[in-house]
């Protein structure tokens, strides 16, 4: 595999991850808890898109938009039914509630659609060669869509009244309330937007690869790792963290570790030593541990939970 291919894969994976990581970090910034159910929003969104486009034969772009909106609404409903009642409790209580939500959502999906992998129809498989690396049309689109979504989020956060209110809430909720910001209304929008973004991320991942109910759980570790790496609660940190994590995972598999091991004098390695493909999630985990030991607040300054 040429090195340029590794870089390309890293960027694609990073940009998919970023869409999901964004939501986790924003929810943490405003509601002060790690939403373990966020990966499930990605899966629910992707399955809804499957329902609209494959089962009901609606245009793929329209189905994706509908799936995003519907996932956003589901998140708002879950917030009204569950999280709103325990809004003032410690982060731990919300964390456990989100664990329950995550288990319920994942298995509702597998009860409806079954546990076998599915895929969308009509994926763009025509590939282009860029600097020795192969990129499919789908991958190119994934990158462009993610970049556009990130730009949109930046504009939302800095150029609209809602974005200003969201930032105010993340700084100091009681003060924001005292200044007349309709807190519950803003929180509704936060859930809607974050879950829609996660749905988009899920659709793009499923579009490139496959769709199965465990996807959300498998994404949980890399996504949280990206969020912590960038500084939990920091929007730009989540995006940078996702990209870095994309690189860490792919480079970790690509690098020949034997010179490094020889350098530290652990043992004399003569042949190339590479991390087996099966350990890919372990690379993520190793990155997480390194970050927690050396950089617990993340690359960009994050927020403190309880």
């Amino acid at each position, binding site marked *: 595999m040429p090195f340029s291919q590794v870089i390309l894969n890293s960027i694609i994976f990073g940009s998919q991850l970023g869409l999901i990581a964004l939501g986790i970090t924003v929810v943490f910034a405003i509601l002060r808890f790690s939403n373990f159910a966020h990966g499930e929003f990605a899966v629910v969104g992707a399955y809804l898109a499957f329902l609209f486009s494959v089962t009901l034969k609606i245009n793929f772009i329209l189905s994706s938009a509908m799936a995003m909106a519907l996932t956003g609404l589901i998140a708002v409903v879950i917030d009204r039914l569950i999280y709103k009642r325990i809004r003032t409790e410690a982060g731990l209580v919300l964390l456990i509630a989100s664990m329950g939500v995550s288990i319920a959502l994942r298995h509702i999906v597998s*009860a409806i659609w079954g546990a076998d992998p599915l895929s969308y129809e009509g994926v763009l498989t025509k590939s282009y060669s860029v600097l020795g690396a192969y990129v499919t049309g789908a991958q190119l689109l994934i990158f462009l869509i993610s970049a556009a979504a990130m730009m949109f989020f930046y504009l939302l956060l800095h150029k609209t009244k809602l974005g200003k209110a969201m930032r105010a809430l993340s700084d100091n909720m009681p003060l924001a309330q005292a200044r007349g910001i309709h807190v519950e209304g803003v929180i509704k929008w936060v859930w809607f937007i974050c879950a829609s973004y996660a749905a988009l991320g899920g659709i793009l991942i499923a579009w490139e690869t496959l769709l199965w109910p465990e996807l959300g759980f498998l994404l949980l570790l890399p996504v949280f790792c990206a969020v912590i790496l960038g500084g939990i609660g920091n929007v730009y940190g989540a995006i940078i963290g996702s990209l870095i994590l994309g690189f860490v995972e792919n480079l970790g598999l690509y690098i020949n570790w034997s010179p490094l091991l020889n350098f530290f004098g652990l043992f004399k390695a003569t042949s190339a030593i590479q991390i087996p493909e099966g350990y890919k999630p*372990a690379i993520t985990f190793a990155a997480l541990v390194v970050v927690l030991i050396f950089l617990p607040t993340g690359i960009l300054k994050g927020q403190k939970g309880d």
Partner: protein
Amino acid sequence: MGFLDLVLYFLIMMGIYGILTLSLNLHYGFSGLVNFGHVGFFAVGAYTSALLTLNGAPFLVGVISGGLAAGIVGFAVALPTSRLSIHYWAITTLGIAEVIRLFALNEEWLTRGSFGLIGIPQPLISVFSVRIYPLFYLGVVLIFLAFIFYAIRCLVNSPFGRVLKAIREEDDLALAMGKPVFHFKVKVMALGAGFAGIAGALYAHYITYISPLDFMPIITFVLWSMVITGGRGSEVGSLVGTVVIIVLYNSTRYLKDLFNISGQTVSSLRMVAIGIIIILVVLLKRGGLVEEKKKTFNI
């Protein structure tokens, strides 16, 4: 399988899960450590004991080594995370359980990968007849359960346990009182992981076949539902929670025939029920079925 065998099977499983739930309650209920990777310690105990006994070690040596090995892993996990907040705890422990499962899946020279270990020896199998044996094994499991129950009860009522509860309620306060919070967290993590390891060993010797599929992350969350339903910080609650969830879980077995739906759908719906139970307990009865008796001072 006859009715009696089925009952014995469930009782043994309740005993093993009882140990797991008690140990998770020690982490989460008594010390406030959000451990989302308890199944990892379960796996370490199971594999350690299975590998040792397959190579000729006696049953008790296997079980105790399983506990020790899991304890050491718990100790190692706690070291980098102990100073961090619950959110990091949650994700790190989730990660370590996955890494342990990946190890079992990939290191085929040791664990035979996805084929799993077969023919794990059962203690004193030749002494008892096939019909009586589960009864004997139930006795073994109950002895371990009673021992661990008693150990945890003594522990949480000791000065050590009071510090744990102080850490759970407000770790800054415990620190201000001069308690080495970091040491306490590492110790209790290692201890609880060790108990989970013992449960793993008992599981391996009962089922006699283990593979990475036995240690999927969902088990951790089933354990969480048991701890929460039973009552956070209550030893009796852990046992009640275990029984309630196992009975609920397995009584849905017969829905398949009643409503003519596939087995896969039933098992998904069962997990949906577990998720909803967790949510309902958090929303409606946070203390669980058996609430912890907290000492209060009346002024």
